């Protein structure tokens, strides 16, 4: 799916002013900022120590001492969710970084060169797309050993073609514009034009895709951890918490409910944020106002 977009005719201040009038963006921004703040807070403070197991306190229900209850090792679930947030964010962020870092130059390069190189790169993209991402991530982590690093790589690899596609489509939409011709007439080379004109103009597009992939990354990390191939203990992870919860649904349903909500809220926030950005950039929605 390629996003249709147009270049915003405003500067940053104008965009920001518009952004904070957009309900989606605002809600997404607040949620995402909150999750990020909680993750950062977990570095300096959590209600309880998540590395300390107190078996005697296992599967206690929500109470003033443990707002979200405790898990099967007596750890405070709220604290686990807080620390898990930074794990989820880190995995998804680095995976998006890999996807962008490799995919965007590839896509931009394909758009510049065209012809056989473009064709080859796009066919390579097709190849990666032919592998169901989750299946392949499971294969990769199963082969090279479970763990956060391998999960990042597995998720990241499948972000590459996504960003390559978006960057290429965006760049192809920019290249025929007259201001590119003007830059060429001014004697600028294709590399320079890509850096000065093309990339800055598709940045917002990449940002939208970035939030989508970020959200998908969080879901993928949770899925991998859920089948035991993602983040490994003792590092808390939301997917892992759900894995531990599923055999204890009767005696400790809070073990499943709260981490599940954490995932839903975070992904929701990121998607709203992405929607908001896309809305702001969509000339049609602007025309309506």
């Amino acid at each position, binding site marked *: 799916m390629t996003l249709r977009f147009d270049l915003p005719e405003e500067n940053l201040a104008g965009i920001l002013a518009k952004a904070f009038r957009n309900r989606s963006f605002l809600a997404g921004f607040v949620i995402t900022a909150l999750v990020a703040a909680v993750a950062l807070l977990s570095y300096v403070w959590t209600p309880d120590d998540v590395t300390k*197991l107190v*078996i005697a306190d296992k599967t206690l229900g929500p109470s003033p001492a443990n707002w979200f209850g405790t898990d099967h*090792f007596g750890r405070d679930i709220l604290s686990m969710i807080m620390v898990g947030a930074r794990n989820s964010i880190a995995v998804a962020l680095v995976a998006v970084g890999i996807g962008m870092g490799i995919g965007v130059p590839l896509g931009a390069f394909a758009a510049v060169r065209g012809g056989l190189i473009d064709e080859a790169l796009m066919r390579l993209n097709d190849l990666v797309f032919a592998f169901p991402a989750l299946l392949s991530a499971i294969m990769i982590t199963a082969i090279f*050993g479970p763990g956060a690093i391998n999960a990042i790589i597995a998720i990241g690899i499948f972000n590459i073609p996504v960003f390559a596609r978006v960057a290429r489509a965006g760049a192809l939409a920019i290249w025929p514009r007259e201001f590119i011709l003007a830059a060429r007439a001014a004697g600028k080379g294709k590399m320079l034009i890509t850096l000065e004109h093309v990339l800055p103009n598709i940045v917002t597009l990449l940002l939208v895709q970035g939030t989508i992939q970020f959200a998908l990354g969080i879901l993928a990390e949770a899925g991998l951890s859920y089948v035991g191939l993602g983040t490994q*203990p003792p590092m808390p992870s939301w997917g892992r918490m759900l894995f531990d919860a599923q055999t*204890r*649904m009767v005696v400790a349903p809070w073990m499943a409910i709260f981490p599940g909500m954490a995932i839903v809220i975070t992904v929701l926030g990121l998607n709203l944020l992405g929607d908001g950005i896309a809305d702001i950039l969509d000339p049609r929605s602007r025309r309506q106002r």
Partner: protein
Amino acid sequence: MKLWKTILAAAALALATGASAFAARTDLVIGIPLEPPHLDPTAGAAAAIDEVLYANVFEGLTRIGQNGEVLPDLAESWTISDDGKVYVFKLHTGVKFHDGTDFNADDVKFSLDRARADNSVNAQKGLFAAIDKVEVVDSATVKVTLKNPQGSFLYNMGWGDAVIVAPETAGTNKEKPIGTGPFKFQSWAKGSSITLVKSDNYWGTPVSLDKAEFRIVPDAAAAVPALLSGDVQAFPFFDPDSVAQAQGDPRFKVVIGATEGETILAINNKKPPFDKLQVRQAISFALDRKAIIDGASAGLGVPIGSHMSPANKDYVDLTGLYPHNVDKAKELLKEAGLENGFKATLKLPPPSYARLGGEIIASQLRDVGIDLEIIPVEWAQWLDQVFTKKDYDLTIVSHTEPNDIDIYSRKDYYFNYDNPAFDKIIAELNLTSDEAKRKTLLGEAQKILADDAVVGFLYELPKVGVWDAKLQGLWENAPIQANDLTKVKWTD
């Protein structure tokens, strides 16, 4: 219109089947964790084969009862010659295979000869190694001559690998097992379930169940809802960690039995710093067995101090040797020159005792300064990396074979443990038949292992069965891996 009729009819049918549950039930769904690779107990080692077929579809000359005793089965009675070398089995008459053919002494000779033949694919050929010859005396009498006396011969004949099969069907048993048991095979939905139905021409006491379905429920996450929703009515081998879900629920009966599984924190004894006795002892002091049992096994399971089941008659209680003592552990590490602690890896195979126990142990060892990186591995990798290549620091595994203390004397075993004194005791043990002497030797062996802190001895793995409270007659212990349904019935 027509579609609606179909849907209504289907709904009515669904209701009807649901309603029939209120009448006295004669069907049972049993959950088993692994799917058998095939259905011929005489051609494979997988426990899952016996779990489905043993005593239900196939029968042997003898059988093993739920407390490990030898009982007559197809052999009504037997005599043993004075020198203990000749066994004459008197067979039941009127026994028929499920395909309608008669069972007689020829089938016994065929089965035993087939199992001990050179080209036999029997997984336990050792059971038959002592047999010299098998002779048919008459259609209901078989004479088995041994090369030398063997006290366990009748027990051996009770194994699933020694069941009697018919020559006509022996080749196809893998897909369509034909035996003499009270149940006959009906269907196998691969990856899903195996269904047995009551055999009408059974020679012995008829069973109460009409139908028994063995459903493959691979993990605890699936087993819990399957049990709670009533889809599956019995899990003879339930994950101990999940037992709390059924405990206290009057609909279910939770039965805790014993196994021969010593659960240990295995240590690579040759790999520094684990080659230092103080380090291994420090680990043993750092372990809080109660917390481990509570956290990884729902509080079930008996702590052990060496490699011997507490149920064993030769068991010596050594659990007091290394009480949970963090200070002592730290002191020992200091003695070993590791007062600042060290880093190591802990490889964990899939079972929950290992994965959960590993997290707890990692936390406990962290308290004394040992920082463990947890590496979960699949069994394949575990066998490859840990067991074969000995590429590991620590691992958790349950050794379920009975009377297997001798593994510590094996050269090149994955513990990398080498103690001539211990080897000597085991060698002596092998030559000793005197019970008292054996007990002393085994006691010494246990003591040495504990003193050397070869591994971290944790606890004896419990056998947890959970089933519908109205269900009677399932085995509570598991001397062998089997689900004998012959006495199982529903009560109201």
